[in-house]
């Protein structure tokens, strides 16, 4: 496989009982790319992300991350994962949470940088249980990137984050990607989708369309992404 491919998902299927959460998904994410996963609730975005971090063993198909086929514990050292719900220790302070994950990944410094990245450095002493929802989300993001992963998986990272900080965070994501970090991000927000280099539209566990935002728009023949998404998803539903 080419050095340029960070993640390769090959005909992955995952069933939960009768529900096919993933139904033969194949996609490639290039190094240093910001790849957006779009899709309605229950489309399979979280399931896809979890299979890329090896939390889920697919029923069939393979996942290759940074050149190594899963399951592989070592490659996880270079992967950062932010869960959809902020997963933190509510009884610890912001800094203690981030330091804990830094230690798990075996890195010493970086805690201050990560906290500044999400603009929580001044609140580093606050106990997580007392933070606002958006702050918790930011703390969770800091935990995911404190070890400077080469692949960052973000499951709806900006839910509940105010518009100003959201713009700043995306600016930072762009810079990280420019430095060679690959970012896969799921979102429902169309203006965030516009900022991705490539998009994958998922519905019913299938990849409906893939390409840059403008490619997706022209594929659907619409002016904006929102309409494109609704159109593509609608077509699939009818067929």
């Amino acid at each position, binding site marked *: 496989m080419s050095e340029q491919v960070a993640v390769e998902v090959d005909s992955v299927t995952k069933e939960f009982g009768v529900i096919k959460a993933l139904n033969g998904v194949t996609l490639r994410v290039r190094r240093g790319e910001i790849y957006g996963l779009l899709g309605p609730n229950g489309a399979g975005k979280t399931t896809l992300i*979890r299979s890329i*971090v*090896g*939390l*889920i*063993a697919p029923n069939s198909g393979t996942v290759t991350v940074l050149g190594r086929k899963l*399951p592989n*514990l*070592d490659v*996880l*050292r270079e*992967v950062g*994962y932010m*869960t959809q*719900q*902020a*997963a*933190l*220790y*509510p009884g610890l302070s912001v800094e203690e949470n981030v330091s804990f*994950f830094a230690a*798990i*990944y*075996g890195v010493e410094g970086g805690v201050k940088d990560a906290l500044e990245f999400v603009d929580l450095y001044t609140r580093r002493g606050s106990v997580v249980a007392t933070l606002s929802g958006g702050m918790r989300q930011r703390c969770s993001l800091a*935990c995911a990137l404190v070890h400077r992963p080469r692949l960052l998986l973000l499951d709806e990272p900006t839910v509940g984050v105010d518009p100003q900080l959201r713009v700043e965070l995306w600016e930072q994501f762009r810079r990280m990607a420019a430095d060679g970090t690959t970012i896969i991000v799921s979102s429902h927000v169309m203006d965030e989708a516009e900022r991705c280099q490539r998009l994958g539209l998922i519905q019913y566990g299938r990849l409906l369309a893939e390409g840059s935002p403008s490619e997706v728009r022209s594929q659907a023949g619409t002016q904006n992404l929102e309409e494109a998404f609704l159109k593509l998803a609608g077509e699939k539903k009818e067929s």
Partner: protein
Amino acid sequence: MSGHRIAAITRRLLQGFRRDRRTLALLFVAPLVILGLLGYMLRNSATPAVGVVNEDSGPLGAVVASALDGSTKITTTNIAASDGDAKLKDGSIVAYIVFPSDFTQGAQGGVIAPQVHLEGSQPNAAAQALQALQSALATSASNRPGAVRVQPEVTYLYGGPNLDTLDYFGAAAIGLIVFFLVFVVTIVSFLNERSQGTLERLMASPLRRGEIVIGYMIGFTVLALVQSVEVLLFALYVLNVHNAGNVFLIFGIEALMAITAVNLGIFLSMFARTEFQAVQFIPLVIVPQFLLSGILFPVSSEPTWLQYLSNVLPLTYAVNALRDVMVKGADLTWSSLQLDVGVVAAFVLLFIVAGTATLRRRVG
């Protein structure tokens, strides 16, 4: 007050239970298990074994011995006086009664003086043996003329006449309290890790499963050891629980019990999805183990099939070890203590392996 709103709450509650089969099973199965165990232990318990040595040159010894034989409270066997202490030590009898050569003679002089040798660490069994002796003497002496005094000479292999119920239960209770509390704290915090999503994060990190289990084990063990010291000191110096053994040995056994509880907690947390379900393990796992551990009723007095069950539970060995040390003054040269400690240590290893194996990559 609105009947509708109240009914809505009641209905919601029952709807939830309909899907939570496990809680329903617990509500209807656990009482039968617990009550059944208790019933079998109390009704079908074997009577304590008592040795009888008849050296009486007169006829009275044989009369009392046959009266003892007919007692429903104890099971008697005739033994030689020289074997008595050895049999007490190996646990095959809880007491032996000697009718000395001048037994009949003494009775004619107005004093009935059988010698009673008690093992001393099992107050219930000892009391039963003494009761049986009393009634045997009463029936045999009733047809004798004149006033007689009954003056049994009682000696103890372990402990002594001053040992009270607390001394007997205290020894085991020290370990049980630590075991129980550590178990509950561990299982609930491990479940928190699951429900707050951090376990998912840990599973997506390069952490190995064994590292999580051992990390948890060490963390809780530190807490448990502090608790063990506190409980032990309180029992020994505030409650003055009798202790014939080495304090450090007791602490070591307590620590081993705490580590067992931590690992059992981690292991069982894999089978619970909510804290509610975790707490259900207390009546299902802890109470039967408590009943079967021999703390209330000696394992040897249980019906045979329950003894098999007792013998595969870690608490049984731990309780036995603590009693051996505190009541009997056992040290590590005793083979019974080596066995008990070895078995508990083996359970620790077993639970670590089982906990690690069940901590699946699959989360939620």
